[in-house]
């Protein structure tokens, strides 16, 4: 069947005709193969202006469209929706960014811009014919369960927020501590295995001695941080150093800490620099200020490599300085060590002054949370990536600040990196809200531009499996790679890397890209 293409030229108010000869473009479009309708509209982004084009598309039974307008991201949702009403598949609507690629950057060269526009039109028409119609698929979620792993600050906030969306929340708590949160709380429970994909996950949970199977639509990882002791040369000479959270707990119970207090920012000051630990800063300042207010006579020193009290915490820094808390900055060369002659004195080289300071200390506190040891088992079960430090890795910061690259699996709090209570709580609420939203929809949508494996060509070399950040390819029953369509995001990384050229990305095949490049390079401008 011969394709019927409609070309829509947008004037972008008056910007296009100011530089380009619209009649010549219209003529070129009308003379091209397969083009049955050419429409010029004032602004394609305006539904009213687009209506005649859509009506004509209905009349002439158009099956493909090429829209010459501005940035695809800005205009595609409305136009695709309009064309869907006219019975055009959404993946057959091709957008050409004439305004930002041709008109705006070449204002002073109308002839070259015209030639470029014509070449772009040719390339777009050829590409349009090569596009394949695709369908999105949907699948109903079998359950409405949001499983939250970890019932700490972040986990409880997530449960509160998720329950607002009307979903079932199930909290897994490793210890047996009793707590109050909406939903079911399973104590002594741990995640040991999982299968399926976001929306329809099958979890294996070890509760007490039994292994239970649980269906879940979404998972929130809120494992929090782990436990650590002092490391490096300092650990040999100081035996009774306390972690900050424990120190804080002791302070709450009313015990008076001994002597001058020294707070170090990492458990291993002589080792490699830790990542930005806003936890360390927010909580160090909070704790020391509280302590100084309670016991003004106590001397407090804060020894640090990097000061990253951000936002309003800067005010706390000022307050601490005014209360008389001493801040000493050191760099790697002058890491604090205990005086060999006098075990109660800490020697540290002040970076600002360049002087060696001897600080007498009674209690040594270190502020840090290492990643939770359970992260590894959870990451293996849910097939999500981890960072080098052993924490859970999140997806792209803009798109997925509290999600993992796997859809339906969210992560918050110190499972990502050490955080203060407030930040963990806020992140937990965000992750809970996202999980609630995700499950509330009741179905998952997938398909469209996804990768497809030609199984005859596949040699099962596992390259794609190692490359894909979303764990979409897997070895199927025929010992060949298959693509988990529900997980595929359509980036095409596996396609580019496949040594056997067995994978193809719908509508971005090698032929389509090479042909477009060829036509564009053929033009003389």
């Amino acid at each position: 069947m011969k394709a019927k293409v409609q070309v829509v030229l947008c004037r972008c108010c008056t910007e296009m005709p100011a530089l380009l000869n619209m009649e010549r473009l219209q003529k070129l479009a009308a003379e091209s193969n397969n083009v049955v309708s050419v429409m010029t509209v004032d602004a394609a982004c305006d539904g009213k202006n687009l209506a005649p084009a859509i009506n004509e598309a209905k009349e002439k039974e158009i099956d493909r469209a090429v829209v010459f307008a501005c940035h695809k991201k800005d205009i595609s949702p409305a136009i695709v929706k309009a064309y869907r009403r006219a019975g055009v598949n959404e993946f057959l609507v091709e957008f050409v960014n004439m305004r930002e690629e041709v008109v705006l950057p070449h204002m002073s060269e109308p002839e070259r811009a015209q030639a470029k526009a014509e070449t772009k039109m040719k390339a777009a028409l050829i590409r349009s014919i090569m596009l394949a119609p695709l369908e999105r698929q949907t699948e109903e979620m079998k359950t409405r369960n949001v499983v939250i792993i970890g019932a700490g600050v972040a986990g409880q906030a997530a449960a509160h927020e998720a329950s607002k969306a009307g979903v079932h929340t199930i909290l897994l708590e490793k210890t047996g501590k009793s707590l109050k949160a909406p939903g079911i709380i399973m104590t002594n429970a741990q995640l040991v295995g999982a299968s399926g994909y976001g929306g329809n996950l099958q979890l294996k949970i070890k509760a007490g001695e039994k292994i239970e199977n649980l269906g879940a639509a979404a998972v929130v990882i809120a494992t929090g941080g782990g436990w650590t002791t002092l490391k490096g040369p300092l650990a040999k000479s100081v035996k009774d150093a306390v972690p900050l959270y424990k120190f804080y707990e002791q302070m709450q119970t009313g015990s008076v800490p001994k002597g001058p207090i020294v707070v170090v920012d990492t458990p291993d000051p002589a080792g490699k620099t830790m990542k930005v630990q806003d936890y360390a800063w927010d909580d160090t300042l909070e704790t020391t200020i509280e302590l100084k207010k309670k016991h003004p006579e106590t001397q407090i020193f804060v020894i640090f490599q990097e000061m990253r009290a951000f936002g309003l915490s800067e005010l706390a820094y000022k307050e601490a300085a005014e209360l008389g808390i001493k801040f000493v900055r050191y760099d790697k060369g002058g890491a604090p060590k205990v005086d060999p002659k006098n075990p109660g004195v800490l020697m540290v080289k002040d970076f600002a002054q360049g002087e060696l300071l001897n600080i007498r200390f009674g209690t040594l506190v270190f502020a840090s949370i290492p990643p939770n040891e359970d992260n590894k088992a959870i990451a293996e079960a849910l097939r999500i990536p981890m960072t080098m430090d052993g924490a859970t890795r999140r997806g792209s910061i803009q798109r997925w600040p509290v999600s993992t690259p796997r859809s339906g699996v969210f992560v918050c709090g110190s499972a990502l990196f050490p955080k203060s209570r407030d930040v963990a709580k806020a992140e937990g609420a965000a992750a809970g809200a996202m999980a609630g939203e995700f499950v509330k929809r009741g179905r998952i949508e997938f398909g469209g531009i996804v990768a497809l494996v030609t199984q005859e060509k596949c040699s099962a070399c596992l390259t794609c499996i190692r490359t894909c950040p979303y764990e979409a390819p897997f070895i199927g029953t025929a010992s060949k790679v298959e693509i988990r369509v529900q997980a595929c995001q359509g980036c095409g990384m596996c396609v580019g890397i496949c040594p056997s050229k067995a994978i193809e990305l719908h509508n971005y095949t090698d032929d389509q890209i090479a042909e477009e490049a060829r036509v564009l390079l053929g033009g003389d401008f």
Partner: protein
Amino acid sequence: MAERRPKVIGFCCEKHGMDAAVLSARSGKQLDASVRIVQVPCTGRVDGIHLLKAFEDGADAVFVLGCLEKNCYYDTGSIEGRKRVGYVKQMLTEVGIEKERLEMFNSASSNAWAFPDAVSKMVDIAKKLGPIGGGERQ
């Protein structure tokens, strides 16, 4: 005879790369008109064959523009793209084409000067090195 116009082709990722190009246009930056843009979903999709075919089809310089490596929309896409570009550079040296003709750039979507910078750099290289092989190509 008019000065020979170089042919520069850029493979831009649809996410941050294309956003950077659009932002530069919207903020009024002017470019050399000889640049062609091919949109790919991610720079990881760019295959060696696309880059080599572009040279075969008459490009004097080819560039790939993707997201920042630590901030890629598809997580590790621009790292894959960089590997691909490095691989093809090696191939170009083997067949006797200057490897400077192929370059990878990264840009944040809020960076209005990255795209014009990349274009002017590649156009300069194309003008400096002249057509591939020194003379008229078949």
